């Protein structure tokens, strides 16, 4: 089994995580070599999907393609989930704010990025 080449899909996932991370740990270690290394609470591989979860309340969006496929399946183009009932996602964000979840995960909802 070839083990050397990284899996492209996973590399893309980690690249997406980097794009939503303000201070990347590898850069921080160069900038602050004496600082004790630490791991962010949100694993890089989970950051993009967690961000979508924070923002829409669900992991996958309903794109135009998805809506078209739903119509072809004789379904409403928009499911009756928090995609449609956005106030429920807003409630989720209020609950997470109350719990300090964003802070625990170093996610800044205003800037829409992870600090680390």
């Amino acid at each position, binding site marked *: *089994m*070839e*083990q050397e*080449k990284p*899996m*492209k*899909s*996973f590399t893309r996932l980690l690249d997406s995580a980097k794009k939503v991370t303000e201070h990347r740990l590898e850069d921080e270690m160069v900038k602050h070599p004496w600082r004790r290394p630490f791991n962010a*609470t*949100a*694993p890089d*591989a*989970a950051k993009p*999907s*967690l961000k979508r*979860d924070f923002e829409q*309340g*669900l*992991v*996958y*969006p*309903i794109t135009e*393609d*998805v809506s078209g*496929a*739903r119509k*072809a*399946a*004789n*379904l409403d183009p928009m*499911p*009756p*989930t*928090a*995609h449609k*009932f956005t106030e*429920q*996602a807003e*409630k*989720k964000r*209020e*609950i*997470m*704010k*109350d*719990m300090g*979840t964003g802070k*625990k*995960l170093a996610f800044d909802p205003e800037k829409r990025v992870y600090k680390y």
Partner: protein
Amino acid sequence: MTASKSKTNASNEKYGYFLGCVMPAKMPWAEKATFLVAEKLGLSWDYMKETLCCVRPGVWKAIDPDTWLTLTGQNLALAEKQGVTLVDSCNGCWITHYETLEELLDEPEKMAMVNKHLAKANMRLEGTVQVKHFLQVLYEDVGLDKIRKSIKKPLNLRMMRHIGCHARKLGNDVMPRYFDEILEACGVELVDTPYDSMCCGLLLYFADPKTSIYRNVFKKFKLAQDLGVDAIAIICSGCYDQFDRGIKILEDEGDPTGQLPQGFDVPIVHLSEILALAFGYKPEEFGMDVFRTTSPSKLISKVEGGK
């Protein structure tokens, strides 16, 4: 605790179907087929509305158990308010709803913690909601006799099955047996394989993507291809998401392990699609051939041609 253990008469029970994240975005054919099946079986069935991510146990439980309990509590409170039995067909959604409800009913201080946070959104969870897996609704509430009586067209197909790990929570004699018996009632010949109980690798992907895809997914795919089965039968949207990822990786990056030199063309079909076909619905009624990574066209021809 009462979750998932009710023997309530199906005709009296109002079910709220919890879609989760994957079903509405990637499996419209399964969503529609589930509604057709529920209608044919005479269930009082509708969407559970306003739903959020379940929330994913493998991610949130590991990051922060209190957040996992509370955000899952939000969905449970919604079901309670809507007066429905919450029904999941995704094993990941079911396990998170089942285990959260069990934990909150067993530990009042955790229920109080959840309600303290839900109050910020003017919500409250009493713990009276019932949670069921779709397999429990089909087998325990509807019953195999009624399912058999509803079958118009035994399918005469050979399939591998993949029920998924969390469906084994209550033991192999519960949901895995229900799954097999319902498939067999539809006229499906199940091919036993050494990989039937192997995890799809969904959560492993985040930590070890190569093992997750090359071992957990491609090994199953190779076996399905070698056995020449008509389909791999599934019930869980999370497992489908992982298989779908495996197919896209195979198409995009090839297979460095050499297990699938010819690619992969075995369709991955949801139990509801199999039931819908056996109940006599046409594939186009639920968009069976649309928006799929492996086409079920050969299977459809076989069913329609009776070959």
